[in-house]
């Protein structure tokens, strides 16, 4: 009987692995098709700007950036956001009752005064205490919202949604460095879509090794420290293969909370961000999709394959573990809260394809890997391993993962997603990360995911601990 179970398990693992490989190949194929389409439909930045900047039809955008205890970086960050090149936008900074001098600094620097503001609480958030605007005309785009402490970014974002007045809003973190052309690139997809565009995602990368000058990234580089270097490769893979591939069939499962554009009306009607969620970005997108599908409306989702935003990623193992444990909890939450959408063709390709893929290959994979790891140890101890076959299968998986990462490097070069300063050195570092990742980085991520699932199951109180920022290299 045990032998039968053993064989069933072995074939199950084999079938699962083959399916996973097929899934990845399919995504690579889809992202290649998406690239071909973008080759024709996505012009260079100058052309986009030429067409959009003088037109009264260019849609206005609100940029929402919640801030909590950011006294060290807040002025630099706001100045950086203000450098965005776009004809019509407003910046909404939401102060989540900071206990440091964040608010005072903002008031002093931008000469803010309290203004009467009629705020319709369209989505749930903690009460807004006051709204401030600048008396200096140079900062007329800036609105600062002072609200009661909510403790989560989602709550701050919701307050920003309540205050913003434009048809589209971009949600970002106050410490992100936004590319000056980012809004043009994102809005290009909006003005080109004949269906209502409800969300546009943008490629984000690590700013850890970049050099920043006056709030702009002037030299993009791959970090040399191992943890950020692996993450750089992982982010590239996620955006240029996975998300780009899904966007080809209008089934983007996630628009990153770090930098994503949404239709304000649809976001409001679907309830905005959930302040209790650990994966509030995926959660809101899925609710928006549910709303559109249930109300019988067609919609479009898109991804900009060029880097639009730089963020500082966790630099140490401890911080990485904390972040990934939280993400895993978020994934579990998504799987349990939106189970109605899974394998449900009513919700189009997202329900029928993306979410099943997410469930089978993102959610279950860490569990499979963990079980497989212990099972192999047990087999090794009992002498049940055919070592030559085992090495060959391990070699196959290793070569395949290298093959996927190679594709990312290839796509990045072709799409010119990032304008790396030292091209050869950057690609060599990415290549090194490709070769080492399966041995060093991947086991850590698998472990953290399983810890996250476990914490969700035993219902440990979730604590949102912000990543400790060390700051990017600055050149004045």
């Amino acid at each position, binding site marked *: 009987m045990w032998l039968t179970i053993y064989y069933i398990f072995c074939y199950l693992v*084999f079938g699962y692995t*083959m399916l996973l*490989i097929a899934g990845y190949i399919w995504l690579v194929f889809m992202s290649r098709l998406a690239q071909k389409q973008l*080759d*024709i*439909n996505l012009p260079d930045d*100058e*052309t986009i*700007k*030429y*067409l*959009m900047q003088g*037109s*009264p*039809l*260019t*849609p*206005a955008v609100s940029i929402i950036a919640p801030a909590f205890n950011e006294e060290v970086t807040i002025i630099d960050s706001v100045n950086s956001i203000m450098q965005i090149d776009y004809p*019509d936008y407003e910046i909404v900074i939401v102060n989540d009752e900071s206990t440091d001098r964040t608010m005072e600094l903002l008031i002093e620097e931008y000469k803010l*005064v309290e*203004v*009467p*503001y*009629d705020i*319709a609480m369209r989505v749930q958030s903690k009460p807004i205490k006051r709204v401030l*605007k*600048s*008396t200096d005309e140079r900062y*007329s785009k800036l609105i600062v919202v002072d609200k009661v402490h909510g403790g989560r970014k989602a709550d701050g974002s919701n307050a920003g949604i309540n205050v913003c007045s434009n048809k589209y809003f971009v949600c970002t973190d106050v410490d992100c460095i936004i590319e000056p052309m980012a809004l043009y690139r994102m809005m290009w997809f*909006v*003005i*080109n*879509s*004949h269906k209502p565009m409800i969300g546009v995602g943008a490629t984000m990368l690590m700013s850890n090794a970049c050099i920043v000058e006056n709030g702009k990234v002037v030299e993009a580089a791959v970090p040399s420290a191992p943890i950020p270097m692996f993450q750089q490769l992982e982010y590239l893979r996620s955006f240029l293969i996975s998300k780009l591939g899904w966007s080809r069939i209008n089934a983007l499962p996630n628009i990153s909370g770090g930098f994503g554009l949404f239709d304000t009306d649809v976001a409001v009607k679907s309830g905005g961000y959930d302040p209790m969620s650990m994966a509030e970005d995926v959660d809101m997108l899925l609710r928006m999709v549910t709303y559109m599908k249930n109300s019988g409306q067609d919609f479009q989702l898109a991804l900009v394959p060029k880097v639009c935003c730089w963020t500082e990623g966790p630099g140490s193992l401890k911080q990485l573990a904390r972040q990934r444990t939280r993400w895993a909890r978020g994934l579990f939450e998504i799987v349990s809260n939106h189970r109605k959408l899974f394998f449900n063709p009513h919700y189009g390709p997202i329900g029928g394809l993306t979410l099943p893929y997410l469930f089978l290959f993102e959610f279950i994979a860490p569990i499979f890997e963990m079980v497989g790891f212990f099972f192999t140890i047990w087999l090794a101890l009992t002498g049940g391993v055919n070592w030559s*076959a085992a090495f*060959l*299968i391990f*070699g*196959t998986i290793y*070569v*395949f993962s*290298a*093959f996927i990462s*190679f*594709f990312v*490097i*290839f796509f990045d*070069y*072709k799409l010119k997603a990032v304008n790396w300063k030292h091209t050869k050195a950057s690609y060599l570092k990415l290549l090194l990360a490709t070769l080492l990742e399966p041995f060093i980085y991947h086991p850590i991520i698998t472990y953290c995911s399983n810890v996250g699932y476990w914490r969700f199951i035993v219902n440990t109180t979730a604590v949102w601990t912000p990543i400790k920022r060390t700051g990017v290299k600055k050149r004045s």
Partner: protein
Amino acid sequence: MGTISFIRYYISLFMAYCKFLFAFVIYKFADYPDEVKVAAMISALCVMIIVVMILVLFVMSWKNKRTQRLRDRIEKKYGKGMEYIVSQEASELLSEEDIERAFGFDRSELDGPLLKNNREKHMFVEIFYLYFISKRSELSKTENSHTMLRMFDIPDYLEKEISLGSMKHKANALSKMRTFKLPISPWVINKLLNSKYMRVQRLAMYSNVMSSSDSALDYFETDFFDKNCCIKDEIELGFSLQRRRKMGLKLPNLARWAHIQSNEKTQCMFVRLMRRFNEIEYCGELKDLYNDSKKKKLIEEISRTWGYLRYIESEELLKKALLTQPDDTKVAIMHALTRLATGNSLDALLDGFKNTTNPHVRYEALRCIYNYGPEGRALFQELEKNSTDADKKYFDFFNNPITLEKIRLDKEQAYHPSVETVFNG
């Protein structure tokens, strides 16, 4: 050995190696279980693809370097001349000799053409395009650019690309010609209108709207834009109509074009364009559409257009509609009544303020009353005096200079007056 046969030779060599690798894998793992065989095949396939990718990366890198070298060479040789052509110094009509001087060459001394092959021409167009869209002064004469492009045989090259190139080349060349405002032969446009690619068809249609003669334009009164219409179409059509007007050509009857379409979004697009280009003579033609339509957005756009274009005859129709339309449309109608500024609509605006509980509509009604001349201002003050605590917040907006600045933000202000400037000019 020619380049193609050289490449063919290496491809066949690579294919032979792949065949050998597969045969070797099958032979080597013949005694192993099936899963191992599958794994071995996958590994072999992955390795082969990785090798191909590395080779392609090298080729791409070599090609990029070559292109960059060409770009640098052309930029160095002609960059100064291009900059001069698009600068304000070229505000007067220049002769070919003047342009030659600016570029620093004498054609009589040259043997062959200035640009030797299509690669050089392509690069020249790309560089000049960047200068044209990013550095061009309003004062520079487009005719100078045309003369310069003709000197380098660019119009012929672009027309050839349109006729013979792939879809990507066609679209690229057509959009370049449109941007440089080069005349495009009608036969080329007609041919492209029958293209199987929607993108090429659209570009051809924009070019047609931009440059065809007045009589030829009626021929294109079709529901062409009904399918898959987006904001970019409106931007491109706006660009074409603007160019048409500058060339002294008559604009099409956009009200009739709105009639022809069945899609609400497309109808709205033409009504908006009408307002942008001050097409007041056709405003009356929108009355049928206004009366018959149940499309909320369309009614909103027509109301706005009548308001912006001061079509006084529509005032009674607007007042009647104010009582029956939903909130969003009410705001548009109130703005239109304010912009008409006849002095007869104050009661209607007051009704608009009183007969709703929607705070946005109430605020907008108040804004219109505030801006409705001295009578409106008097009524506003009276309303402020008698306001309840709940209504006080609406009046606060008008007493604060910062928020007032915000509400004055009107996207169409560049083309038409906002409600704040109707009476004051």
